């Protein structure tokens, strides 16, 4: 029964990932990624990682993907016409990637083929995760919060800037910087 559940959601995840590649419009790719994330959340639950499963749904599928969809809407992103040379790259690259995947899977099967994972054998609840996070991993946790602060500041600085063409900007600045500053208002 556990294997059936695993296979159903594994197929769903792979189908979502393939659909992500096939779709031309970015909004369909983003929604396919949401499918992959929900399927992976179920896989995490099967593996007993409750905390990660719910964080996956709330943070990844909820917050990050909403950010993606929001940016796609803001930019009014449409389909990008495929370049002619990308067809050649796909014909050469896809078999190489498939070969790489088969090699990795073969190695993995040889090394870990005997290990079996049972349902509920090892349950990671939120309590132990918090314990580990705030004892053993306290310094990385704090560094991460600084990273977040820098990231938010960087995002605001990058996205909120009023962009002028670089050449015109340089010329006006050299000639009469005060007039340009007044003209911006």
């Amino acid at each position, binding site marked *: 029964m556990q*294997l059936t559940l695993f296979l159903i959601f594994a197929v769903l995840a*792979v189908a979502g990932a393939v659909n992500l590649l096939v779709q031309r419009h970015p909004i369909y790719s983003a929604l396919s*990624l949401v499918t*992959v994330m929900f399927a992976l959340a179920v896989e995490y639950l099967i593996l007993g990682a409750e905390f990660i499963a719910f964080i996956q749904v709330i943070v990844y599928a909820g917050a990050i993907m909403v950010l*993606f969809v929001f940016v796609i809407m803001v930019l009014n992103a449409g389909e990008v016409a495929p370049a002619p040379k990308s067809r050649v790259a796909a014909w050469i690259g896809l078999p190489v990637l498939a070969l790489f995947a088969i090699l990795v899977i073969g190695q993995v099967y040889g090394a870990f083929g*005997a290990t079996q*994972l049972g349902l509920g054998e090892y349950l990671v609840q939120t309590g132990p995760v918090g314990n580990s*996070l705030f004892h053993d*991993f306290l310094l990385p946790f704090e560094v991460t919060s600084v990273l977040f602060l820098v990231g938010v500041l960087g995002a605001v600085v990058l996205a909120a800037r009023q962009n002028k063409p670089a050449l015109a900007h340089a010329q006006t600045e050299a000639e009469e910087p005060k007039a340009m500053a007044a003209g911006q208002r």
Partner: protein
Amino acid sequence: MVPLSYYLALSAILFCLGVAGFIFKQDIITVFISIELMLNGVNLAFVAFSHALRQIDGNIFVFFVMVVAAAEAAVGLAIIIAVVRNRNTLDVDQMTRLRD
């Protein structure tokens, strides 16, 4: 009972599909989405090993990967907005210059 290798195989397949999207897709937003797909594939391997080795560290690493992915998404999407405002295109082949 599910063998550990099944989880790792699924993880490898998702990672390879992410690499394929990163290399072959034309518009910059889908390239960025493919990076998230790769991170998800790696996360699955972390959680599977965490379960197999009976150690909680894998779960903690997945937590940090998610945090870094969130920060990366915020900064990356801001960069995409700035680039698209300047160049007025989403095609990665046309974003060949860092200047202006």
